[in-house]
């Protein structure tokens, strides 16, 4: 059974947000810099929030890992600035949970007790920087810039994926069969035989497919499908292309 519409990814991604599933208009802006600071020390939360606001970035603070995790589904992608030593759940454990949830937002880890072992653990869990307190504003800002650049790049990739998927929605079942056939390298004649259609009918569906997806040549169409992460209906045999 061919999908009626292309499935939208629901995994956390740097360009997406779990609850705000794609409606088509809510792509995160690459200009909007957001950071989250997770530290049980109120002084640190305040200091970092002030620093970020002074550079025009948005910052939201959390006093514990669990507070952050509870809020996560409602948050837009941003850099997470995480203290290693927190009671209840420490920074490394938080990184682990974020990874488990498929959240790959850039994470910057801070510590007052620099241990190589901890730093390496954090990096293996995806942390992009390890800051030893006391650290200068410049060090934190440099790491944040790297994180925001990565987020913007991911959002752009997601944007292209989103755009490609949009171009593939609304295809008729027949058009999807033709798309599968083209991806499978079948000729019009082979598709006609597999689908029990006349050659002319296949050509007609093929040209409406190309028109709808705004693809000028077959290579464009295949590239579009790849960008969208489109998977053709299971089964390599052309005989599986029979439409319902």
């Amino acid at each position, binding site marked *: 059974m061919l999908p009626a519409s292309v499935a939208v990814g629901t995994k956390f991604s740097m360009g997406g947000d779990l609850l705000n599933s794609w409606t088509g208009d809510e792509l995160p802006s690459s200009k909007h810099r957001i950071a989250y600071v997770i530290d049980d020390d109120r002084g640190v939360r305040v200091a970092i929030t002030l620093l970020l606001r002074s550079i025009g970035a948005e910052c939201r603070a959390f006093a514990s890992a669990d507070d952050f995790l509870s809020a996560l589904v409602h948050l837009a992608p941003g850099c997470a600035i995480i203290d290693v030593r927190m009671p209840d759940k420490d920074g490394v454990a938080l990184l682990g949970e974020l990874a488990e949830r498929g959240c790959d937002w850039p994470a910057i880890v801070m510590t007052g007790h620099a241990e190589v072992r901890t730093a*390496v653990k954090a990096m293996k869990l995806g942390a*992009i920087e390890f800051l030893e307190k006391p650290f200068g504003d410049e*060090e934190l800002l440099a790491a944040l810039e790297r994180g925001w650049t990565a987020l913007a790049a991911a959002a752009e990739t997601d944007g292209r994926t989103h755009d490609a998927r949009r171009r593939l929605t609304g295809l008729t079942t027949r058009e999807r069969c033709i798309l599968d056939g083209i991806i499978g390298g079948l000729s019009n004649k082979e598709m006609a035989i597999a689908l029990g259609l006349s050659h002319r009918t296949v050509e007609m569906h093929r040209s409406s497919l190309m028109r709808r997806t705004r693809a000028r040549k077959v290579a464009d169409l295949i590239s579009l499908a790849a960008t969208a992460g489109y998977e053709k209906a299971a089964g390599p045999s052309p005989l599986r292309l029979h439409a319902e």
Partner: protein
Amino acid sequence: MAFTSLLYVSVSTLTPEQEREEVDKIVGVAQRRNAELSVTGALIFTGTHFAQLLEGPVDGVDALMRSISRDPRHNSVTVVDTGEATRRLFPDWSMAYFGHSRYIDRFVGPLFASSEDRPRTSIDRLIGLMQEFTLSN
């Protein structure tokens, strides 16, 4: 055959756009070639610098270093430690770290100093870092 170990640091000439692809290539070639030569060790890339430890038969390590020194993807190749080794520190060759952390780069940067200003502890710290990345699960 004598068993040797060599640690070098170098300055990357890669642009940000090239990094991923070029380092992937380096890793692909190294995994195959080093296994053939029975050379083990670890590679660190920090965006600014490379650091690599190679250990194995003298001929193998020498052959590798000859081609590594000629590689245009880095310059200022500085051997910070080399000599006969009694045992392997690494069970195989792998990429220990790929990233742009300044914290990690601080393990590598100081080793470009002249040998008098390059204390043994800095060398040991870098090797320890490589082990921490590759040996823990």
